[in-house]
């Protein structure tokens, strides 16, 4: 569904992402992990069009994202959340979601302004937003200003905004960062509930427990390169990963512990979710 094909991002002399290739399959949750500076966020930002791509291709289906202007990327079916919340603070929660459903093109906009498309279309958009808000337990906040909500709720609103346009690829950039235990648990349930056959989810996270609990496959990055990929068990066994995480023993313990717990619950079918492209 989402495919990185020899993607490189160069910031001056620094290669933040260096010839990365992998594919994200629909229906499952793919986690991208790695130490700080590994290039995870750069990857997401390139996919979402926030950064330009130095070389390589990023594809959703047959569409090459790196050739599209940023707003067309959303139309191509990719939507995202942000590491630092980027809600439209001055607008109501409902309006925040409606932004994602604004019709594209000038003609529909003008028609809508003069009421030519009738109330039905606008009503339908609004209903859809309400439905998503209800699903994420945000119904009560629909009319509140997004900026006035608690941090955890803002994170959820961002998630709601990202899914209301029914994307094919959903990039979650550290959704659990700054959340307390209860909120993380809630978020976990919501993410799992969002799993759908047609939706490829990419999760960038530092919370290993969350990753191990919900991701179906894991991509490990270090210094701009893909270090390893595979199931939680594969990752745990990989010595290179252990090296990369040296100095973060807690993290590797988390990986191991979570992997142990998970093996009993989810059986991952071989070959699904992660494809290797050998350089």
């Amino acid at each position, binding site marked *: 569904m989402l495919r990185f094909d020899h993607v490189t991002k160069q910031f001056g002399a620094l290669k933040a992402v260096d010839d990365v290739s992998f594919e994200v399959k629909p229906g499952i949750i793919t986690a991208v992990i790695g130490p700080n500076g590994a290039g995870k966020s750069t990857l997401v*930002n390139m996919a979402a069009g*926030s*950064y*330009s791509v130095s070389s390589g291709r990023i594809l959703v289906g047959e569409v090459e994202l790196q050739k599209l202007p940023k707003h067309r990327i959303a139309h191509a079916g990719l939507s995202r959340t942000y590491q630092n919340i*980027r809600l439209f*603070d001055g607008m109501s929660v409902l309006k925040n979601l409606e932004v994602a459903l604004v019709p594209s093109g000038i003609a529909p906009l003008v028609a809508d302004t003069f009421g030519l498309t009738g109330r039905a279309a606008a009503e339908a958009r609004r209903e859809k937003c309400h439905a998503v808000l209800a699903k994420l337990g945000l119904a009560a906040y629909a009319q509140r200003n997004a900026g006035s909500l608690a941090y955890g709720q803002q994170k959820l609103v961002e998630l709601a905004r990202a899914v209301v346009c029914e994307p094919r690829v959903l990039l979650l950039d550290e959704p659990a960062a700054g959340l307390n235990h209860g909120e993380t648990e809630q978020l976990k349930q919501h993410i799992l509930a969002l799993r759908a056959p047609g939706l490829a989810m990419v999760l960038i996270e530092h919370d290993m427990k969350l990753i191990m609990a919900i991701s179906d496959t894991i991509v490990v990055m270090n210094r701009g390169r893909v270090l390893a990929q595979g199931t939680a068990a594969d990752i745990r066994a990989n010595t290179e990963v252990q090296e990369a995480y040296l100095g973060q023993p807690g993290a590797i313990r988390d990986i191991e512990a979570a992997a142990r717990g998970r093996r009993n619950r989810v059986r991952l079918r071989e070959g699904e979710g992660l494809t290797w492209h050998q350089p």
Partner: protein
Amino acid sequence: MGSLILQQTINALTVGSIYALIALGYTMVYGVLRLINFAHSELFTAGAFIGLGLAGALGVAGHPLGGVAVGLVTFVAVGLIGVSVEIVAYRPLRGTSRLAPMLSALGMAVVIQNAVMLIAGRRPLIYPSFLPNGVVELFGAIVTYKQITIFTVAVVLMVGLELFVNRTTLGVRIRAVAENAETASLVGINPNMAISLIFFIGPGLGAVAGILYSSFYGVASFTMGFVIGMKAFTAAILGGIGSIPGAVLGGFLLGIIETFGTAWMPVLTGGLVGTEYRDIFAFSVLVLILLFRPAGLLGEHVSEETMVYKSDF
């Protein structure tokens, strides 16, 4: 022809020195607060008038040495006005929106201009020159001592500022706050202190420019700030707003563009575009620079990728 070009270059450098001195005030304030300080041009005017008043009171009008004394005192006086303007009209608005302080600055510009008008009168005052008289001929071009003095004073002040900002502790603090006020306050720098300092130096330099300007042209009027302020601001943008060397470069460049544009555009276009388009040269350059190199000539190139601010205003 050669002497003509030389003459025009000398003209350009004189005007450019003054643009550059004023541009410094805009660029420093902008660099730290991202605020277009519309009141700056009026402080320039106020500087000229305060200098005139001082010279009259001290009885040193027309003496170059007296001019140095007057310049120093005026620097301090206008600097203090600048600091108070910031404390009264801008500081309470910090963190509200970007638009509010800018419009507050506009209000202050109106207040200062009219205060100058009420105190000094509407009549353009004949300004006693603090600059030495005399002329030298240089390869057929006429250079007055006044021009040389203006250029020298401007360059000395600008080099001094650059050294101050880069070599002194206070200067480093200013830069730290300009870089990132929050981080600076984490390492114990009081941003208010740095901002006050900027609002002292910028208007102070503007005031000196006011004295030089009025001495050179021999007249001071309460409305003279607006246009020259716009030009200086253009210069600041041209060089890269927020950058001190940029403001200097921008000032000189704008002087050159205006002078040569005014002199040669009528010839080049066969009279179609005449000297009356002088202001358009400035603004067209401004528009073109912003379109093709928004960071200005010496400004740090900020790509969209690294811009992390949400709404503009």
